[in-house]
């Protein structure tokens, strides 16, 4: 594809525009004033020091990260399973399953959260990290099911059969042929699920116990007003997330696929699609 100049320019403009509000958050935190707003006060790092010094921030951050990672994995697993199941179901049950899967997505956040809060009482589950994990997973599963399902419908029809013909067992065929095809959708779904979980306030509020997630902590503090400390905390988290994402991206950078046969008569490297 011959790239033109318009779309790369649009991309960088988009990145700048999306980052702009964050730039404002960071800018208004680098002040010695007690207020967030313009005109800015004198540049100072005192709020970063305060944010790092408060142990409640660190605990809430770790809890949020843990929930995000775990719920993303569970949601993608559940969503993939549902997508696969719909492939082998008849049209009527398939539609019902899809409709049921979508329910958490359509329900407004507060309604879903209160519904979950009441529903978990029936199974004797107390609010806390496990309940929050359930809530985040259930919230993210529909997205994962749809994204993986959409990708699944584009699988080349004979792909799995070809793998089986070449001698792979069903599990091996699935893991080494189907999953790589689905991977972009799974990665996208995992990313989105993790983000939604990290950001989630309303489910974490109703399903949480006495250890708050970061959004719940920030929300509670917002009542007294937006402070530079809250902005500093967010900027720190953003920096940490970008750092983490960079590390992950470097570790999983695509490598070459080598096709090799036992006799060594044919060897060809080809660039893999990530």
């Amino acid at each position, binding site marked *: *594809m*011959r790239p033109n100049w318009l779309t790369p320019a649009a991309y960088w403009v988009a990145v700048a525009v999306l980052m702009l*509000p964050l730039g404002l958050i960071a800018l208004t935190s680098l002040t010695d004033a007690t207020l967030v707003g313009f005109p800015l006060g004198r540049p100072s790092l005192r709020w970063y020091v305060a944010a790092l010094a408060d142990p409640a921030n660190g605990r809430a951050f770790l809890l949020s990260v843990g929930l995000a990672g775990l719920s993303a994995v569970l949601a993608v697993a559940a969503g993939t399973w549902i997508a696969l199941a719909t492939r082998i179901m008849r049209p009527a049950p398939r539609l019902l399953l899809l409709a049921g899967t979508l329910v958490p997505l359509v329900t*407004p956040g507060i309604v879903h959260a209160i*519904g979950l809060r009441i529903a978990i009482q029936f199974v004797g589950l107390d609010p806390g990290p496990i309940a929050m994990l359930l809530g985040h997973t259930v919230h993210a599963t529909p997205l994962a099911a749809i994204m993986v399902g959409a990708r699944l419908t584009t699988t080349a029809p004979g792909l799995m059969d070809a793998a089986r013909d070449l001698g792979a067992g069903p599990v091996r065929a699935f893991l080494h042929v189907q999953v790589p095809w689905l991977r972009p959708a799974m990665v996208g779904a995992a990313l*989105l699920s993790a983000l939604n979980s990290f950001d989630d306030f309303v489910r974490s509020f109703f399903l949480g116990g006495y250890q708050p997630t970061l959004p719940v902590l920030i929300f509670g503090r917002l009542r007294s007003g937006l402070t530079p400390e809250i902005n500093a905390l967010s900027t720190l988290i953003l920096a940490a997330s970008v750092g983490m994402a960079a590390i992950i991206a470097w570790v999983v950078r695509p490598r070459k696929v080598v096709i090799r046969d036992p006799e060594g008569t044919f060897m060809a490297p080809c*660039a893999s699609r990530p």
Partner: protein
Amino acid sequence: MSRLPRLLFVAIPVLWVVAAHLGPLLAMARISLLDAYPAAPGAVPVFGLHAYAAFAASPGYRAALVHSLWLALAATAIALTLSWPLAWHVAVHVPPARRIRRLALLVAPFWTSEVLRMFALVLLLANRGALNAALRWIGATNAPLALLYGNGSVLLGVVYTVLLTMLLPLFAAFDRLPSDVLDVATDLGAGRWRRQLFVVLPLAATGIASGVALTFLLCLGVLVAPALLGGAGTPTFATVIGDFFGAASGRWPMGAAFSLVLLVVGTICAGGLALAVRALSATPTVRQRMGA
């Protein structure tokens, strides 16, 4: 697959969906039929459809629902228009090695709390905010522009909230487009727009439809953007629902009933949008001509 494993393979997700997805919904449905929840100590619960009747009888509530639907439609359209070239660029133009990094750059801003991102928009658009300050500095305006607390700022806030939900499915859809089809289309003389409309859209229809439907549904439930960026005009339906749950227990059934109404209407509209995308893509395509 043989009989039993196949049955189990299907039954387990079905059971999970019924328990975990439908359970909360059934709890809500039950509340919507009561007169108060939780019942006051010692009171006998009364079942009935009065909450739904209250919705049907009130033009104000119906107006709020319609307002939310239009808002969601507009935000979805804008998000689609903005995400398409971005997803296209990252999925197709960027070499595979750099693809994830480029995507991560777009995604990174969303690692901030939704509430703070909305406050950042307030900081940007307020009378004494960054944008007005910049405009005055370069001499473009004398008086501050009232950019905030209207339909425009709410729309901006909602788009900023849901952009990712449109972007990632589009990226996944574009990512697996066979490049040879696109090359053939170019060689056959199709310009950029024709390529997108007649080649990309049909091939990526499922992914685009799912992104559109997801984004639309998400827009309907957004609470923070209208709350922080909205004016004194019509509230969104989600806000109305939220207010019910913050009131005394006599109002909870209203909140529950309204959420079910939102559920049904929203699903129908989202399904309609997805079908519309599919219908738009059913035009004569290169693929058909190639007999694939």
